[in-house]
């Protein structure tokens, strides 16, 4: 079956593209996994840096509390002021710091440094914030917004002394912070949220436009303890973190794969089309040879009284080359007829050429009135295997349709089979050498057919098999013919061919059957 070039091309393209996409996807997935892993490592490092920064926030508060504890129940506001002044002011840690003393449920501010804090004395939120600080073992954190200002308020309290420290650190209006190039955040975009959730309301600082949050693409997050709460750090890479090749590999694979697939698909198309063309040519050549061969066979049989004629030619199964088998039957005068079945050795146009020559030479001698033996004798001088490279076997006969008498001569051909109503037998001939061997004389055999008897002539393709000798094949034919219940020459030929011919047989077959229906 010739395959359609387009089907092959499309199949290759589909398979190629699937493989390309799969490998590209796999490479991309590996890259993404690597990227995710690298990002998490950097984020954890950034988290550590953040923890250290928190210590810097907490340390002044703890120190101030320790100072007040040493100072006794009245406190030491000047010590507080001195200490915190170093931490409060433009470009420093805090914008403001306050010292508070608890009196029962009331909270009294006894000292204050820096700007006016957003947490004012007497506010309920301030009181509850401080009470919360007294109930907490660590410092506490709260976001405070007042008018347009936002701050993060820190508080640490010492329940044993009744002192509490608060400090506020303002958050820029746009909540953006610059990132030091050498810091752990250098390769990261980040957003820091107060509390466990990355909600816009809990945003503390970020290095990107707050409106673009949350961070998209590959992200990682880590949580850092922050007083009584946590900071949630969310990051995404500013640029590819892994090796550049790892990032480009999926694209390289994709482009390379598509190009290769296109090439393979095109090549497949060309190859298949070329092969299809060759197969077509091959088929045409064989078709031509076979038509030539068939053109040399009789298209119809002559009408001969009392004679039922049937013939069949079957070409060999494989190859361009055809064989040189033929059959022929012609009417002579006085109710006589002549017939030939022959076989030229070898195959191809040369063999068919020799066949044509043999067929018309034999026919000419027979029409000229020569006997079968004389015809073969004359022909033997006209064929030479040394010159044309082929041997020709032929069974030549002349019959009388009025009497059933038949005379045959044989040039190296298998003997014909007589199929009678009550049995079968091969005609005993005395074969002379095939035509092409050299000048020879041939013996005649004469026999008389009984009414209803069929003379079955054939070429060796009908009986020859490579694994057995010729007699075994001949015997198989005899058995096949004897077992047939046929009433015409045509049925006998068809039965013999369909029974004995295998589909993969290489040799050609020609079969000619003549059933004599006369009466004596």
């Amino acid at each position, binding site marked *: 079956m010739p395959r359609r070039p387009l089907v092959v091309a499309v199949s290759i393209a589909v398979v190629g593209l699937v493989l390309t996409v799969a490998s590209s996807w796999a490479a991309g997935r590996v890259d993404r996994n690597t990227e995710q892993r690298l990002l998490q490592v950097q984020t954890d490092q950034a988290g550590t840096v953040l923890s250290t920064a928190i210590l810097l926030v907490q340390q002044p508060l703890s120190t101030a509390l320790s100072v007040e504890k040493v100072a006794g129940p009245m406190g030491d506001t000047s010590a507080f002021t001195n200490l915190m002044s170093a931490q409060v002011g433009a470009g420093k840690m805090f914008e403001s710091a306050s010292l508070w003393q608890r009196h029962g449920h009331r909270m009294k501010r006894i000292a204050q440094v820096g700007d006016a804090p957003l947490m004012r004395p007497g506010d309920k939120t301030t009181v509850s914030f401080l009470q919360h600080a007294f109930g907490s073992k660590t410092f506490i954190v709260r976001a405070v917004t007042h008018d347009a200002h936002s701050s993060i308020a820190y508080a640490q309290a010492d329940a044993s002394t009744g002192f509490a420290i608060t400090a506020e650190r303002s958050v820029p209006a746009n909540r953006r912070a610059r990132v030091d190039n050498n810091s752990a955040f250098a390769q990261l975009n980040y957003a820091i949220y107060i509390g466990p959730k990355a909600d816009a309301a809990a945003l503390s600082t970020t290095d990107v436009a707050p409106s673009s949050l949350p961070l998209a693409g590959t992200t990682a997050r880590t949580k850092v303890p922050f007083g009584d709460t946590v900071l949630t750090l969310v990051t995404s890479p500013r640029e590819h973190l892994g090796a550049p090749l790892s990032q480009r590999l999926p694209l390289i694979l994709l482009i390379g794969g598509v190009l290769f697939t296109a090439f393979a698909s095109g090549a497949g198309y060309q190859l298949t089309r070329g092969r299809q063309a060759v197969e077509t040519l091959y088929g045409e050549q064989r078709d031509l040879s076979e038509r030539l061969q068939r053109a040399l066979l009789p298209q119809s049989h002559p009408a001969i009284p009392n004679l039922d004629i049937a013939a069949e030619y079957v070409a060999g199964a494989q190859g361009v080359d055809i064989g040189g088998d033929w059959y022929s039957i012609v009417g002579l005068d006085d109710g006589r007829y002549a017939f030939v079945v022959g076989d030229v*050795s*070898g195959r191809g146009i040369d063999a068919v050429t020799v066949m044509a020559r043999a067929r018309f030479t034999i026919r000419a001698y027979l029409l000229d009135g020569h006997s079968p033996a004389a015809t073969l004798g004359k022909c033997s001088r006209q064929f030479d*295997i040394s010159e044309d490279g082929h041997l020709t076997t032929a069974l030549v006969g002349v019959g009388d349709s009025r009497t059933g008498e038949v005379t045959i001569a*044989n*040039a190296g051909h*298998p003997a014909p089979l007589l199929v009678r109503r009550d049995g079968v037998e091969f005609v005993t001939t005395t074969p002379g*050498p095939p035509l092409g061997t*050299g000048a020879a004389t041939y013996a005649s055999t004469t026999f008389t057919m009984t009414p209803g008897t069929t003379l079955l002539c054939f070429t*060796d393709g009908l009986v020859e098999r490579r694994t057995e*000798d010729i007699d075994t094949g001949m015997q198989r034919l005899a058995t096949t013919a004897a077992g047939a219940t046929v009433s015409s020459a045509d049925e006998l030929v068809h039965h013999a061919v369909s029974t004995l011919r295998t589909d993969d047989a290489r040799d050609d077959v020609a079969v000619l059957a003549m059933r004599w229906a006369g009466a004596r």
Partner: protein
Amino acid sequence: MAEFVIETPAGARRSLAVSGEFDLAAVEEFLSAALGCLEDAADVCEIDLGAVTFIDSSGLGALVRVRKAAHDRGKEVVLTNVPPAVSRLFEVTGLTEAFGTGSGG
């Protein structure tokens, strides 16, 4: 399928032995070897057919050609160890006389 093989043993009297399936596909190789044998042989080229498993009309034709070539050169081809099936085929095809009985060697 038995492969067609030609053996040409060294020796004073030229000969060759063929085996396997002697068909159309084997003809060219056989003719080349056999005609070479005829060139070198003083008078007789001996062809051993003992291991031939099958021979068709093309193989028979090749044997005929070699025999005719021998006659043209005034030499002779002798077939030896002819298997019964091949010998029988010679009978059927009227070639027994041309090749002699041959089976004795």
